[in-house]
């Protein structure tokens, strides 16, 4: 039987697995599903159609599945994968039109906010006070530093590092280190790539591509270099992925002279 504090309020229709721990003063809404191994600390509020994957850890004062600000219905959906840690004072909004999706093995630190309909990948680390806008897409292995913000509907590529106080207002390429407001590409996130087991050959190829693509200030993409890299079928697969992401980003922003495939 689940270990639920007598001071917690769990609605009778909520689905709670057998070995879940729920601390005092929690509220678990009627449409919430909590899978096995989850540990919910005290004063946590779970609302909407929220699903917590196996072994999710939720720390005190967090709110998961909150209705988007301004919406009056408590019916949004939020689906979380396995092994996530949601720290103190975090707010994860539930998406009304499309669900908020959070992958696996993420660490979401104190006072972060994840907007409605946002889509987080796997193995992300989001530092304190990170704000992720509505319907933003964060790919796998992204690291975000304190106070970083991602705008609405923006995509942050895999293995990217977003520095503290950065404001990502347009799509950000994968493998990049991003800093400033508006955000600029500072270079290749070599440290994260090494930690994630990229070979030296891949890292060298990406480094060369970054040097060609971005000018000294990292604020705009060299379109000639981009077209050349995208057309090179023999290029490194990671470089191809980078070029593809940049082309999509530029097409979305409606800037640059990019050839269609």
């Amino acid at each position: 039987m689940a270990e639920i504090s007598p001071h917690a309020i769990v609605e009778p229709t909520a689905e709670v697995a057998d070995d879940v721990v729920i601390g005092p003063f929690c509220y678990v809404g009627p449409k919430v599903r909590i899978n096995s191994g989850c540990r919910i600390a005290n004063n946590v509020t779970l609302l909407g159609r929220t699903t917590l994957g196996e072994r999710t850890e939720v720390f005190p004062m967090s709110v998961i599945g909150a209705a988007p600000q301004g919406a009056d219905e408590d019916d949004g959906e939020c689906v979380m994968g396995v092994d996530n840690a949601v720290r103190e004072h975090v707010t994860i909004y539930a998406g009304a039109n499309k669900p908020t999706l959070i992958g696996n093995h993420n660490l979401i630190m104190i006072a972060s906010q994840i907007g409605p309909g946002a889509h987080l990948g796997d193995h992300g680390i989001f530092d304190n006070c990170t704000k992720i806008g509505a319907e933003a897409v964060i790919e796998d292995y992204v690291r975000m530093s304190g106070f970083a913000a991602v705008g609405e509907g923006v995509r942050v590529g895999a293995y990217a590092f977003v520095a503290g106080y950065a404001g990502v207002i347009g799509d950000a390429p994968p493998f990049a280190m991003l800093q400033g407001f508006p955000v600029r590409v500072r270079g290749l996130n070599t440290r994260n790539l090494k930690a994630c087991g990229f070979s030296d050959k891949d890292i060298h190829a990406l480094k060369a591509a970054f040097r060609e693509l971005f000018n000294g200030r990292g604020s705009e993409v060299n379109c000639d270099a981009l077209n050349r890299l995208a057309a090179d079928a023999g290029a490194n697969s990671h470089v191809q992925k980078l070029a593809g992401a940049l082309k999509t980003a530029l097409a979305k922003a409606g800037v640059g002279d990019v050839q269609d495939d």
Partner: protein
Amino acid sequence: MSKMTDLTVLREIDPAARIAPDASIGIYCVIGPDVTIGSGTKVNRRVTIVGHTRIGSNNVIEEGCVLGAFPQDLKYAGGPTMLHIGHRNLLGREVTAHIGTESGGALTRIGDDNLLMDGSHVAHDCYVDDRVYLGRSVLLAGHIRVQTGARIEDLSGVHHFVTVGRFARVGAHTPVRRDVPPFTDFQSFNHDWQSPPTVCGVHEAGIANANLPKEQERELRFALKELFVNEAALQTKIEQLVNMGVEGEAAKLCEFCLNSLQGVYGRCRELYRGQAPPESRQPPSPEAGIDIRRNKQ
């Protein structure tokens, strides 16, 4: 406490927790088994205190604080590390402080007479000395030392292993990536990576609060002017000052700057990466706490 609150028993205090009889605990609080709370401490509503946390006397802990939770650090192995909070601190709403990590000295310490405003965060293995002011939502990353009397304004973030010197001031919304020398005013006006925050002048209020003897103050002002009007060739200028035979605060300032230069990226505490810093072995200074009263007279 009002009679109303006394009648409401909606709080969960572990019977093993040691709480002074005249400490007051508000409703919806959760207090863990290894917690010690000293006399006269007022814990407001919805506060969570867990872990091996020791809180001294006459503190005020406001709504929504979470103290003594696990560090947000992947190297933490789950050991019984500690959080110590001294006396007469005011912790604003939703302040968070974490216990230490085993490899970083296993102790997070907040001294006496500090003012931590709403939403500020003291991470694992931080040492916040006395009479420190942390503004709203100030984030201290791990392994930081904030020395006595320092003032960090709203929304600033401090990088791992940074030392903020005595009576220094960090301006609002500043990303602090290197050590902040004592008695200086450290600011950024532009978050572009090409113009990182720098020392922008002397923290006058800090010098006033430190109550230095006239001669020391004069020497300190001279040293600050020499070193920071232009930060180029800092090491040479420090050596010149040392050769001139500066004493007291000016000598301490030179030593601080020299240590920072010898560290990594201007952070002297980087040298303690992966080991317990000396602060974790020192007991709190005996004069801590009486300082502020002496100043007020």
